[in-house]
């Protein structure tokens, strides 16, 4: 059930209507719980049972963890919870990858190995809800929050359908108090919800899916197209993944607002970042903050020396890459970003020690240069992320940097791609420094409402595909 499908809109309309027509908060929680279960079971009802079982397990462990005063027992329970959650994640997501890699390694060593592969389906959204469950148990262990007493509330925290499939990764401390709070109809909140949903829908349908028209054929046959088209398709992929994922997050935030809940923002115009560290503070914020709080800081963060910090960054980014998918591409992608972060730290110290260089970098022109270089660097890293294999990624890089080559031109008419890219740039320009809000505030609310209706119709009209899945659903 995709957020921008008719099926979801009808489902949501029913949930929304029943939710706000019921006066009892308890009944609303149960309604959302049932709706979330139906939403998840629409993909696979057996996998919906797995998530319910693992959530119940986490609830019980956290309960015991909270009640216990003995450090050894608490540590054992925390370990049990983490091992259980990561065990489920590894079994479904990584087992076949590890087996295949082991088989290849044995073959490379000369052994004639043939290891059996598991026939498992990857539960949709498993990476997201596993991290939510782990953060909750760790927070209970750290006594940052108390364990939730109500199983329905806890289940809603994990299963709440707006964030269930592709985040944002919510924290118990943010979400659980909202479940307990009585919800009241609020027009301001509805307004925010509608606008966020429409913004996300436009990003996904009109921009991301259009970029896919160029990206898919070029990445399917790397090396077939000339350098210009290959570069354009790499930039188009950067636009696609941003609009696809941030579009999903906006729709998730919008639907949550419409039901009276607030989820944390996940994106903050990441392609305007002037360096890679800033990029990660603006991109998939809920994941990068999770990695910081539950992996980077426990590893020692940047408290140790330079080498220790670099080691921690490499570990965190490599695992962050692996979190995205079970393939060497994602590991290489994470590792490359980790190296870039280390280089950036080194360069920052170097520049800070040289006031003239630092001032030049802080100037308007210097910032524009840094933003451009960061964007191009990120685009290059997306090649690893998008390519089906490392060999394909290397063919893409070859095609990007081979200047004089007789190869095919674009597989499609590029005008639509370029126009939508410009639309995104214009959107960023408007969103910066509150220009958008100031322009909107100067216009009567009714006119803004009509403009939103027109833009929604436009998004539907510009959809080049029907039912293209969100990229992050595979994670």
């Amino acid at each position: 059930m995709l957020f921008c499908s008719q099926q979801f809109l009808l489902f949501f309309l029913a949930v929304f209507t029943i939710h706000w027509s019921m006066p009892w908060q308890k009944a609303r929680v149960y309604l959302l719980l049932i709706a979330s279960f139906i939403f998840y079971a629409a993909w696979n009802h057996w996998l919906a049972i797995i998530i319910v079982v693992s959530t119940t397990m986490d609830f019980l462990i956290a309960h015991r963890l909270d009640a216990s005063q003995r450090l050894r027992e608490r540590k054992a329970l925390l370990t049990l919870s983490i091992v259980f959650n990561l065990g489920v994640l590894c079994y479904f997501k990584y087992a076949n990858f590890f087996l295949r890699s082991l088989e290849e390694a044995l073959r490379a060593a000369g052994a004639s190995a043939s290891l059996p592969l598991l026939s498992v389906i990857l539960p949709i959204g498993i990476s997201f809800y596993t991290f939510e469950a782990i953060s909750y148990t760790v927070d209970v262990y750290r006594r940052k929050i108390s364990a939730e007493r109500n199983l329905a509330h806890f289940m809603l925290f994990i299963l709440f359908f707006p964030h269930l499939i592709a985040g944002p990764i919510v924290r118990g401390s943010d979400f659980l108090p909202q479940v307990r709070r009585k919800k009241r109809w609020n027009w301001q909140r509805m307004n925010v919800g509608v606008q966020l949903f429409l913004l996300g829908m436009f990003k996904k349908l009109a921009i991301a899916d259009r970029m896919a028209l160029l990206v898919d054929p070029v990445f399917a046959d790397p090396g077939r197209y000339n350098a210009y088209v290959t570069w354009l398709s790499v930039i188009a992929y950067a636009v696609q993944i941003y609009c696809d994922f941030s579009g999903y997050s906006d729709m998730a935030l919008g639907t949550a607002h419409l039901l009276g809940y607030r989820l944390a923002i996940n994106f903050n115009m990441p392609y305007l970042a002037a360096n890679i560290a800033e990029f990660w503070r603006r991109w998939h914020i809920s994941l990068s903050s999770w990695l910081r709080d539950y992996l980077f800081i426990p590893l020692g963060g940047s408290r140790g020396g330079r080498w220790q910090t670099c080691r921690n960054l490499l570990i965190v980014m490599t695992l962050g890459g692996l979190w995205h998918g079970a393939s060497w591409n994602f590991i290489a992608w994470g590792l490359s970003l980790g190296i870039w972060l280390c280089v950036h730290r080194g360069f920052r110290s170097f520049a800070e020690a040289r006031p003239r260089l630092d001032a030049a970098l802080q100037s308007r022109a210097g910032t524009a240069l840094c933003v451009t270089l960061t964007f191009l660097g990120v685009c290059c890293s997306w090649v690893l992320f998008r390519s089906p294999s490392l060999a394909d990624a290397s063919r893409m890089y070859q095609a990007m940097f081979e200047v004089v080559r007789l190869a095919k031109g674009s597989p499609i008419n590029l005008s639509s791609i370029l126009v939508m890219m410009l639309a995104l740039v214009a959107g960023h320009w408007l969103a910066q420094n509150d220009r958008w809000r100031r322009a909107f505030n100067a216009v009567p609310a009714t006119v803004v409402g009509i403009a939103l209706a027109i833009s929604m119709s436009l998004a539907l009209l510009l959809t080049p595909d029907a039912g293209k899945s969100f990229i992050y659903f595979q994670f």
Partner: protein
Amino acid sequence: VVKLVQNRRGARRLVLAWLFAFVAMQLGIGLALERPLAAVRDPDYTARAALLHDRIIESPGRPLILVLGTSRSLYGLRPESLEVGDRPGSQQPLVFNFSPHGYGPIHHCVVLERLLREGIRPSAIVLELAPYQLCLDTRINTLLLTRREMLKSLPFWDKPESTVREWTLAHAVPCFAYRFQFMLRLLPSWVPATANPFSWSDLSRFGWRPIPFGNAPTRSAAQIHAEFGCVLREYRVGAASELALNRLVETCRNEHIPLVVLFMPESPAFRACYSEQAERAIHDLRQRLENDSGMPTVDARDWLDSERFFADGHHLLPSGAEAFTRRFQSEVLPLFFTPKEIGKRSGEP
């Protein structure tokens, strides 16, 4: 980016304005698709009907022979090549090819009824049937239909309620359901090639279209057999197609329009796919049409005995279309008109 309206009344106005404007816009477009935007709803029909209107205006009073068929006749019958074809002011029959791509008798029913409603009454109809489509019971795309046509077509569907639901959902959000049709008019280069099945763009003045995949290598007998063999082995005429045929026959009888059923040429490799049961079923169908309905049938499947005329065993290349059209003139047109009425081919004594 989101506008945070601090004022509660402002927020309410904004949300309600959005909701009403969106619903009104969709309803308006949905209603407009019934008539003013009919060209968006069914661009293929509109393009052909416009061509037909032009031909009728060019030479008013000429008896119209309308060819209703499948892609086989779309690519295979070239009225320009007929002596009677392209001669403005002539009083000889006007043959117009009104065959779309990919549809069967259900679509022909709709087309004929639309033409009659618009005041175009053919003097005769050549109804081309593709045997494998009759077996597959090829339906019509409900998005092409008006509400009235959709309701009238319900007997052709196995699950009429799902047809009504599909049509209603599409008309609830026509901006999405008809997006490619709209975009083809507004920004054609933005429409993905895979979503552009419409075939009116390069129609000739009399409705013929050269086969678009004519340059592709001719398909081998094995490929043809793999594609059509299973359909033509366990053959039976589908119930919906049969029903549509009966309705067509009845309409023609009520309107006193003579009707001829035509089976287009097929390559030897394609004909080899027919099982005995399939041949018998087609024979029975022809018998039924000739005896019960009194309409002549023409089986032209073996008229062109060489693979070189075909792109894929059953779609004619332009050379095949030329050859078939010549024989169409001499063997099908006389079923409606005397040779004198038809006239002699140019260049002949």
